């Protein structure tokens, strides 16, 4: 605990603030992070108020629940309605599919259970050998190793996975290749980077000439990472820098990456609000097809997105709008009555803004 409080040292924070102001270029700058936990730290500690006026920080597609496609959700709903025990993470049960949420399906009699990990879902499968148990596997490279590990460990026959894991680096590439692009630099997510390593961003950084700085989760971690990004912009550099070396290495977690190769193959995936991004999703390899829920239950979601009228989650997820730019934000759309996915997920930008500040730039 004491270590954490050191990373909130007021004097060091003041020195970082000076660096941020010194290094910020003399033009509007947009820095995008893709991590709900980064947004929580930024909002909770009021970090935006420490930045120069011309520097904006936005959350892009950093909330795994928010970017899960209606298509995948509809598959989960159909599987639950077919009598399987459907296990998934808590927030996922509240996100609207095209017809309803998983929570509503549960109210109508479906067996939908909240778990904290893929291993918990395997436990449920072992305790219910007569019933199919499906783990709706969402999340980025952070939760994917858990899914891969249970599959590699010979789960029971009645255990299936509906894989909806998504990969961060291709999403960064997609944000940079969907005009109009107004992203000057990225903060790369610390948790994802512990798995894939800082090296995973080099290709994108070089291809798009964009600074990418791996950032941790304490206030000083973020201020440090922002200052490195601003320094790169001022000096006209575009590199990958690691501002979270106490947890992130160049190569990442080799064992986890090996598990990925063993269990998954990479293919195109639909991101809610963004659309299809090539090579941004995990699919089960043929050897694990017998645990593939889509195959077992014969479900394929229908293409196309249902978008609530007026909702600007798509632009929020593309880092083209702040939550407060949305006409629904805080009025009809609140954490109690969420309209769009960014208000449902506790890592969604709208949800975090509502809980921590409403208007974070004070």
């Amino acid at each position, binding site marked *: 605990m004491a270590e954490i409080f050191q990373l909130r*040292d*007021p004097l060091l924070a003041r020195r970082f603030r000076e660096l941020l102001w010194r290094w910020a270029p003399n033009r509007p700058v947009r820095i995008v992070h893709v991590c709900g936990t980064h947004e929580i730290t930024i909002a909770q500690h*009021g970090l935006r108020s420490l930045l120069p006026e011309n520097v904006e920080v936005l959350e892009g597609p950093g909330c795994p629940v928010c970017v899960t496609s209606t298509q995948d959700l509809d598959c989960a709903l159909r599987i639950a309605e077919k009598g399987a025990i459907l296990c998934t993470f808590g927030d996922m049960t509240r996100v609207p599919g095209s017809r309803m949420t998983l929570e509503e399906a549960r109210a109508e009699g479906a067996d939908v259970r909240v778990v904290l990990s893929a291993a918990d879902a395997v436990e449920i499968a072992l305790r219910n050998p007569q019933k199919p148990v499906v783990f709706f596997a969402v999340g980025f490279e952070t939760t994917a190793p858990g899914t891969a590990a249970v599959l590699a460990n010979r789960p029971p026959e009645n255990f299936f996975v509906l894989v909806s894991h998504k990969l961060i680096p291709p999403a960064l590439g997609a944000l940079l290749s969907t005009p109009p692009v107004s992203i000057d630099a990225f903060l790369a997510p610390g948790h994802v980077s512990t798995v894939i390593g800082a090296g995973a961003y080099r290709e994108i950084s070089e291809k798009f000439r964009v600074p990418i700085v791996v950032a941790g989760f304490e206030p000083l971690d973020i201020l440090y990472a922002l200052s490195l990004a601003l320094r790169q912009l001022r000096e006209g550099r575009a590199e990958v820098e690691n501002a979270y070396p106490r947890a992130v290495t160049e190569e990442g977690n080799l064992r986890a990456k090996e598990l990925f190769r063993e269990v998954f193959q990479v293919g195109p995936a639909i991101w809610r609000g963004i659309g299809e991004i090539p090579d941004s999703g995990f699919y089960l390899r043929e050897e694990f097809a017998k645990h593939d829920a889509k195959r077992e239950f014969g479900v394929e979601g229908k293409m196309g997105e249902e978008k609530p009228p007026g909702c600007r989650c798509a632009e929020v997820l593309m880092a083209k709008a702040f939550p407060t730019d949305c006409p629904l934000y805080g009025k009809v759309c609140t954490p109690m009555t969420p309209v769009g996915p960014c208000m449902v997920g506790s890592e969604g930008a709208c949800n975090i803004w509502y809980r921590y500040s409403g*208007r*974070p730039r004070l």
Partner: protein
Amino acid sequence: MKRLTEEKITHLHGAGGAVMEKLLLEHILPKFSLRRAGPIGLDELDDGAVVDLPPGKLVVTTDSHVVKPLFFPGGDIGKLAVTGTVNDLVVMGARPLALTLALVVEEGFPIADLEQILASAASVLSELGVPLVTGDTKVMGKGELDGLVINTTGIGIAENPVSDGGLRVGDYLVVTGPVGDHGMAILAARNELPVETPIQSDVAPLWPALERALTTGGITAMKDPTRGGLAAALNEMARKSRVGIEVWEEKIPVRPEVQGLCELLGFSPYELACEGRAVIGVAPEKLEEVLAALRAHPLTAEAQVIGQAIPEYPGKVILRTAVGGRRFLEMPIGDPVPRIC
């Protein structure tokens, strides 16, 4: 062999007959040492109490208590039910004069537990010198409620009542001790924490500690940060007083074990309930006097100035964070921990 009616509550205990009278006379009334505040009190078992009123303004408050579990580290529902109402009177600037207590008990509730709960309610009142003047007992069927509900109503006398909307620009905000203990203790008692913790509820009556501070005349607004914690209390004070409030994170007292668990669980300690704290608005010229009065009593010895009322952003609370950032401290959406008081 003991009869069922001597060990567990049955519907007969709430039926108004001989069984109920026996329960009242043998198990309930004797717990309370002070039973009247005028000619007719608890002993008379009349339809109401008659209270002699001293000069001043009469303050009335009522609260129903539904805490789960009924026994928790640092207290139980009995202590909480009495303390909660006493503290509501105190933060209105009133000296507690008398309380009533109404029990709604589930059939099958152990009488020994009920006795223990009432004994702890009674010990709070006798320490304060406040009588219990009337009460009521009802029994509901098994499964119709969860164990026990206690309602308490209190009356008090205030020479100068204090509202939660009396802040003026420039007033300081003082909190009388570390925040969040009660909410975290309840969570721990429900075995909902990933670790064991020694955190105890802060439930305690505030009258002895605040009596002197009230006589300074420097208190402009006051609130007890129960449900919704410090964040809800400050927002309500700002809204009703039509001023902004700026609070300074590094000044807000939070026990390290509460802070640590909040980090782990993703809670804000400012949204967790307290049951033995007050948030006080103090006129600047009286600040030293009020602080000295508070710090002289062990319950409020850790009193801290945590912020100030400001002319900007009326109705809003601004938190200056430890790293120097500024953000709004919003009204909590719901309580992170339901059924806490």
